[in-house]
């Protein structure tokens, strides 16, 4: 047994095959990206422990994640917000965690996406389970997990094939095997799903440009929204979610915290569905009244109300920058951000 020869062959072939794999995926249009995973979220959550009264936390679902741009916010206020929003999630578990487990009394912006905010307080329901899993991960993460993530960042930034994306854009072995179909034993009505965001280390996120330039791509995302809107058989739990949120909101404001509710833009079929099934007058307005928080609803402002989302739910990168700039201007004018540099 000539093990030395074997290891040299293995080494050479490994380097060649991995390089070829990377080049292949780059040729297919993939490029290195960071994963929006629990570890990345936990890095931002950790910053809250030392955040001051001047700091701003962003919470909500993907609309806050995509539509509020940290650079624009920072350039106007001098403060770079901490991005804690979580895609497909109710903001309630994360807001609850910050209110109950920290002494933070700066500004918290809570994005209200009606279909998610008012969805549920059931621990096993997806809009609750996803953000709660992030909170739990943060509480329980080990030093080994922290170091693994820190070590993975330069690799994620260097190699396109190191992607944790799922669905049609998934390229790790499990995802590639998942795309092989033999027959249709169990029908899956869910349309193909694209990962349409690009996230940075501080979780600043933008909609991929392809959603703006490729109509078919944007339409595939719209089909997902239609699927979610039509397949969700659970009625919203308006009373339960509102009550849960108000309890935390009162505690937060009582200790001097500045709470702001924001309704980010949506358009097309998504907006029509929201207006029909979760109308502002029945959901958002009573919430605002009950919390007594400052509130910004995009349709109330001439400069924001005509923004259009290419895939109905998130603004393009340039529109998100515009939206953030204008929103912050309005907030500063209202003196809603008491500790911003403009004040």
């Amino acid at each position, binding site marked *: *047994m*000539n*093990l*030395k*020869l*074997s*290891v*040299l*062959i*293995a*080494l*050479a*072939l*490994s380097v060649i*095959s*991995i390089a070829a*794999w990377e080049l292949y995926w780059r040729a297919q249009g993939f490029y290195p990206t960071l994963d929006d995973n629990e570890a990345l979220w936990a890095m931002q959550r950790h910053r809250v422990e030392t955040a001051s009264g001047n700091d701003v936390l962003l919470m909500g679902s993907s609309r806050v994640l995509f539509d509020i741009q940290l650079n624009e916010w920072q350039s106007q206020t001098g403060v770079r917000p901490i991005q804690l929003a979580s895609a497909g999630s109710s903001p309630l578990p994360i807001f609850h965690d910050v209110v109950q487990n920290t002494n933070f009394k700066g500004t918290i912006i809570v994005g209200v996406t009606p279909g998610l905010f008012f969805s549920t307080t059931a621990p096993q329901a997806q809009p609750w389970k996803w953000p709660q899993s992030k909170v739990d991960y943060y509480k329980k993460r*080990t*030093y*080994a*997990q922290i*170091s*693994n993530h820190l*070590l*993975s960042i330069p*690799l994620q930034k260097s190699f396109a*094939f*190191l992607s*944790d994306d799922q669905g049609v854009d998934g390229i*790790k*072995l*499990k995802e590639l*095997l998942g795309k*092989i*179909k*033999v*027959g249709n*034993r*169990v029908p899956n009505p869910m349309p193909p799903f694209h990962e349409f965001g690009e996230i940075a280390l501080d979780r600043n996120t933008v909609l991929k440009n392809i959603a703006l330039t490729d109509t078919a791509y944007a339409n595939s995302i719209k089909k997902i929204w239609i699927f979610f809107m039509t397949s969700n058989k659970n009625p919203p739990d308006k009373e339960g979610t509102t009550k849960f949120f108000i309890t935390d909101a009162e505690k937060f404001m009582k200790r001097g915290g500045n709470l702001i509710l924001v309704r980010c833009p949506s358009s097309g079929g998504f907006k029509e569905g929201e207006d029909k099934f979760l109308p502002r007058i029945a959901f958002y307005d009573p919430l605002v009244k009950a919390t007594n928080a400052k509130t910004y609803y995009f349709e109330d402002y001439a400069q924001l109300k005509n923004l259009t989302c290419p895939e109905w739910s998130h603004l393009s990168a340039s529109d998100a920058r515009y939206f953030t700039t204008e929103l912050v201007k309005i907030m500063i004018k209202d003196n809603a951000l008491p500790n911003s540099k403009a004040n």
Partner: protein
Amino acid sequence: MLFNSLSFVVFLVTVMILYYAKLFSWTNKKRMLLVASYVFYGLWNPPLVILLWISTVVDWIAGNKLSTEENPRKRKLWLLFSMTVNLGFLFFFKYRNFMLDNFTSVVNSYGYAYHAQPMDIILPMGISFYTFQTMSYSIDMYLRRTERARTFLDFCLYVTFFPQLVAGPIVRAQDLISQFYEEKKATINQFVWGLFLLTIGLFQKVVLADTLLSDTTDSVFGSKNILNGLDAWTGTLAFSGQIFFDFAGYSTCAIGISLMLGITLPDNFRYPYGSIGFSDFWRRWHMTLSTWLRDYLYIPLGGNKHGVVRMYSALMITMLLGGLWHGAAWTFVAWGALHGLYLVIERMLKSKIQIKINAYNGILLALLTYTLVNITWVFFRAREFSAAKNMLYSMLSMHNGGEKILQSFDILKVFVLTSLLFICHWMMRNTSLKAVSEKISPWVLGIVWAVMFFLIVISQGSGEQFIYFQF
């Protein structure tokens, strides 16, 4: 720290550099290994290193006393001291809530409305492994089967040696401590073979267990409904593969890493799904645990020296406790009971029927053994008896009306993979990986190695836990 993690890569490279650089004497290298082992464990939960220290100090003291004390009563007390502390830790951290739940159920069945407050206790990783390992030292010292460790450092390293600390193999003192007395250095062939074993172990864990099988297992055992028979069998077969690749993968990694340091660990798995019968299975599955249970439980309970009834009782008790060792739940006890029952029936049949094993009936008997082992895995994997009952109903009746949850490709994937696993175990049952590797061309070995490494890299294991860490 997990073997399939980036921090472990950095950790291992650092340890290897420090170990092979001519910076330290052998004693200092052992100190370095000890510190590294504490770092390895502490990066998961630093305060729980204290438990390791207590366990180490207690057994060191007990071992020293047992080596010099001649008074039988005092010797018994020192042994009792060691076992009380070790089993006390195990009981408190692993079985407290289980016992409390059972106590509550019994009390309430008599009409009391007792509500116990379960404690939110973290289960220290690998506590069952290192507890059994340190206990074996004290018991062997008591039975004068082994010599006292020469130095405290050697003993600490025996308890804490990082490759096998959290999931075995469970090593006896005489097999490991004596290796620490002389300077150890792997030959180039040992080092490369160790690296090869590490690659195989990671391939088993990351690619076969986590990428190819775990989702199917989770879907099937996570279902609340009565499943279609095909789905239930697929899920169970997937779990049989997953748990083997997960656990054997860890052991192979541990043996490989240790060999890279020039230290030999015992085999823990020898192609168990190629077993003919259950005695054979337990000589091949988790061998270091089954020999531990044989030497420290089955034989002290009477073994096969005191008649049939005592032997069967000892067998059942050993397997029941072996089941409980795996987890604080009655489903694990049922798993152990089923294996105990298989062993008892097998011995009864063997005493009445003599079968000459050949290649034809052998593979059929191996297939029968594997099928029956799969039945036991249902109890091992199901979290509740109701789930196990539903699964067994679907499997045994080949229930056609149950819910279908798996795609055809997933079923095909699991059947192909587990069939290959079974055939591979059958073909390898009388040989070893080393023997096979020696027969094939270095080019073929190199290509197989590269393919495994490539698949590990493109699978991108997300650092999921090894199943046996929870035991």
